[in-house]
């Protein structure tokens, strides 16, 4: 059960896995063939079980497709979180609030400037980058030496402040952004909206972009160097504080992209982002904290577990399975399924 959904994402998410063999030592440890075999067996078992319990192939297909697509959304949202944790060792509790902020920025851009929702990325991404950098520079950099809970407290405060400022500015009535031409497409009786497929593609693109930034640019190299050893980086002349600022900015920018994609299919409210907080933490841990491709994989695992678990255990909250699986995986693989960070 535990790792079952992991297997099915191997074919569906070739991008991160394909990269793994190229840099086996530096990037991340892909699952061993044995792990793969076991997980493949488990995902089949879970699917069969889910199919039998639900008694409907359509329902099963829907669960698998929805699981993959919501998994993509989860990883979109977790991307910034994992980056910030990996480099700064900060659990950013404000991640959800930042998603909400980006959703409202998207709304403002669409309704105020008449932009296409995806064009709003041109506004939300830079704006959130600046905001994230400012937060790190002013609030977090001074306490980088403090323990992890001290920084956590700042991000909790930040989350409260952002959500309630949004409430004050935009009011409590839920808003929405419509994606022109959005409609459902059917596949073997299962059905999904285009906006969700685009969001999934967005997640893939974002992973690729972040990976490229981290591995193919000088800043990325500096970021990875700081992540591995701040002291060592300082010695070779890297401005560590500046890298912290850039990393948090980058994380916020990733979160901004997530917010814009999500705003096309859910209601926009101040609390719309924090509903993802719980799952985002799970995704980050499963994928290995700081592991960007891992976050994608972790998201898909969580998405599928949630959907199949919901079918297998009717009457229970679908998330219950996710957390049970999470704990089991954590004990089996204390550094996440995919081991170490990039």
């Amino acid at each position, binding site marked *: 059960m535990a790792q079952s959904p992991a297997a099915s994402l191997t074919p569906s998410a070739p991008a991160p896995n394909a990269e793994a063999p190229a840099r086996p030592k530096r990037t991340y440890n892909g699952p061993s063939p044995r792990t793969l075999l076991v997980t493949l067996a488990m995902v089949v078992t879970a699917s069969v079980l889910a199919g039998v319990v639900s008694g409907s192939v359509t329902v099963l297909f829907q669960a698998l497709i929805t699981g993959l697509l919501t998994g993509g959304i989860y990883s979109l949202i977790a991307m910034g979180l994992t980056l910030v*944790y*990996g480099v700064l*060792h900060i*659990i950013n*509790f404000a991640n959800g609030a930042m998603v909400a902020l980006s959703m409202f920025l998207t709304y403002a851009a669409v309704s105020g400037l008449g932009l296409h929702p995806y064009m709003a990325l041109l506004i939300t991404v830079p704006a959130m980058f600046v905001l994230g950098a400012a937060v790190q520079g002013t*609030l977090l950099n*001074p*306490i980088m*030496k*403090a*323990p*992890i*809970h*001290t920084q*956590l*407290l*700042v991000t*909790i*405060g*930040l*989350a*409260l*402040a952002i*959500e*309630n*400022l949004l*409430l*004050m500015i935009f009011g*409590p009535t839920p808003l929405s952004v419509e994606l022109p031409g959005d409609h459902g497409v059917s596949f073997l009786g299962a059905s999904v909206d285009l906006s969700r497929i685009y969001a999934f593609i967005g997640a893939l693109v974002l992973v690729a972009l972040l990976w490229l930034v981290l591995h193919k640019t000088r800043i990325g190299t500096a970021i990875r160097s700081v*992540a*591995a*050893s701040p002291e060592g980086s300082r010695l070779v002349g890297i401005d560590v504080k500046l890298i912290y600022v850039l990393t948090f900015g980058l994380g916020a920018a990733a979160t901004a992209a997530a917010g814009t994609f999500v705003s096309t299919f859910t209601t926009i409210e*101040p609390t719309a982002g924090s509903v993802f*907080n*719980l799952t985002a*933490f*799970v995704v980050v*841990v499963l994928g290995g*904290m*700081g592991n960007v491709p891992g976050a994608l994989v972790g998201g898909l695992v969580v998405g599928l577990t949630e959907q199949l678990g919901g079918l297998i*255990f009717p*009457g*229970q*909250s679908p*998330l*219950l399975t996710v*957390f*049970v699986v*999470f*704990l089991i995986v*954590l*004990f*089996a693989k*204390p*550094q*996440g399924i995919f*081991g*170490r*960070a*990039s």
Partner: protein
Amino acid sequence: MSTSTAAQAPSVSRRTSTPMAASTVSMRWNWFLLALTAVVGALLPFILTPAELSVAMRVIIFALMGIGWNMMSGFGGMFSFGHAAYFGIGAYTTAFLLLDVGMSPWLGMIVGMAVATAAAVGISYLALRYKVKGAYYALSTFAFAEMLRLFVMGNDGLHRTLGFTVPVLQGDNWGMFQFSADSPNYFWIGTGFLLVALIVSMVFLRSRAGRFTIATRDDEMAAAAIGIPVLRHKLTVTAISAAITAAAGTLYLQFYMFVDPEIAFGHAVSNNAIITAVLGGVGMLWGPLVGAIIVAPLSDLVAALLRNPPEWLALLSGQSGLDIVIYAVILIACVLVLPKGIVGTIVTRSRK
């Protein structure tokens, strides 16, 4: 990167605190403060209005949660992000035994503390056994709390999401742990809990086991090397932590008389425990109480301030959410100005 994650926990805690200061250098101070707490606790019901007393109750519950969290995370060095689990177990065990078995909440509380202790030791044993460390450990505790919340939500015997309502009795009833609204008994009992929790912490920290625990937190490798049974001490401090937090859960139930999965196991509970302890001073005996005295009334204070706003705020008053924004800004400011917490800073200063 992962290696630095694993190394984070112990090194982080070392910076946090000055363990011995709390337990040996100023023992007389501790007894004095304890007596002061007792006296203030005894007198407050005569001074405060009922509404203020209700806020004071929240101070006590926050302080208990903070003390519980501080035991495990401050002294034990295991960062818990899911103390709602033990708080919820305390509240739910008591509620279940009271309503479905008819057991007095006093006994229910003992059972709840035992269950919470068992759960905490169990989950921590697994985590330590499988070497789940640092932030991974934190998130495993978080997942455990969430799991319990979701489990209760799907369990008919625990009323799913409907929760438990404690039936109102007439007058004061010591046996059933229930008193009339304006009775000072709740507050006195709460103060009693608080004193017991503080004394237990003091005694533990002064004992051999306590010193070994702190030595383990500060340098686990060294502690293990000189033969300290690391696992046992970590589990002991976890057990004490869970028991104190569970008692806070029972106190919450008996005072507020209603509990549901979100109230008991919700993430806000864990956050409040952390905020309280961090603001007061992590790894400081008196940190959580001082933190609670600031945090618990803070949102009410801000709301009160906004009811008759000063001029510079008048423009914004009446805006819902403003009080929370101000509350959040104060929280952030406190942490930035005093990253070691209030007590932590005082102790560091006075030692120089």
